[in-house]
């Protein structure tokens, strides 16, 4: 009986919540009254990576730190900073990794050049095909 109880208790067991008991920050889940500023903040938040659930943007994530970052973004945009200023402030701290927008730094060049390279390869292949047909 005791064993059965323990087994049943295991089913009800929940992982320890690693979350604080404080409510979300003021601007975490609240839109700015100024619609233009809110739109600017929103599009920036969609391009910032959540540091906890790293595949998500802070606009998408339910992590507490993401909420605090949304609060920070909205506060700064509301105070008149441009989205690029906020982004570069975060990049200074976390590296370009924190922003989803591709940069022009050398490491990202293959990303920009790949479509061009594929176009060139495609053009060469098509040219060959046409030539082969013309020979026949």
């Amino acid at each position: 009986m005791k064993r059965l109880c323990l087994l049943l208790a295991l089913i009800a067991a929940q992982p320890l919540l690693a979350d604080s008991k404080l409510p979300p920050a003021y601007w975490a889940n609240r839109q700015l009254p100024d619609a233009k500023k809110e739109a600017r903040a929103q599009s920036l938040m969609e391009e910032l990576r959540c540091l906890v659930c790293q595949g998500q943007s802070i606009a998408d994530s339910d992590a507490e730190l993401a909420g605090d970052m949304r609060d920070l973004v909205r506060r700064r945009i509301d105070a008149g900073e441009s989205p690029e200023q906020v982004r570069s402030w975060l990049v200074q701290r976390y590296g370009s990794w924190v922003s989803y927008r591709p940069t022009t730094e050398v490491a990202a060049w293959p990303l920009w050049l790949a479509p061009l390279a594929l176009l060139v390869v495609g053009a060469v292949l098509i040219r060959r095909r046409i030539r082969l047909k013309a020979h026949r």
Partner: protein
Amino acid sequence: MSRAIRFAPLVLLFLLIAALIWRLATPVDSTVSSKLEGKSLPAFALPAVVAKPGLASQDLQTGTPRILNIFASWCVPCVAEVKVLQELKRRGVHIDGIAIRDRPEDVAAFLQRNGDPYERIGSDAQSQVQIALGSSGVPESFVIDGRGVIRYQHIGPIEGSDIPTMMSKLEQAR
């Protein structure tokens, strides 16, 4: 079409499999390190959370290296870390804390239960100073030299085996 090119898809497949095996064997390191190492602490002033002074960036420019520990009462690994911090304190290390998203009664209970290695504790209720430091979780620790420059970041709990590293980083920051 030449013969060699016929094997290209097969070669590509093998390359792909090799790449997948390599990434499975050595997974990507997903820790986010602060880019502020080697730079001055950002200016901040945090209020007190328990019956000891709060923490401002000037408090970390005392001429001697200090450890700035980012912790929280709701953080499970922090419980074990406090014991190691106590040991560092016994060795004469100055430790200040920043409590992330915490309530005064919870911090007080946490210190009562686990011990209190901190000289000052600042309350960062909305992680703003944590973000300004480029820190992405709890616990994390920074070695700050006497002039307020961040010299080293330790991500995750400081364990017993990390004590020599921490001591030598503190020594180097002198």
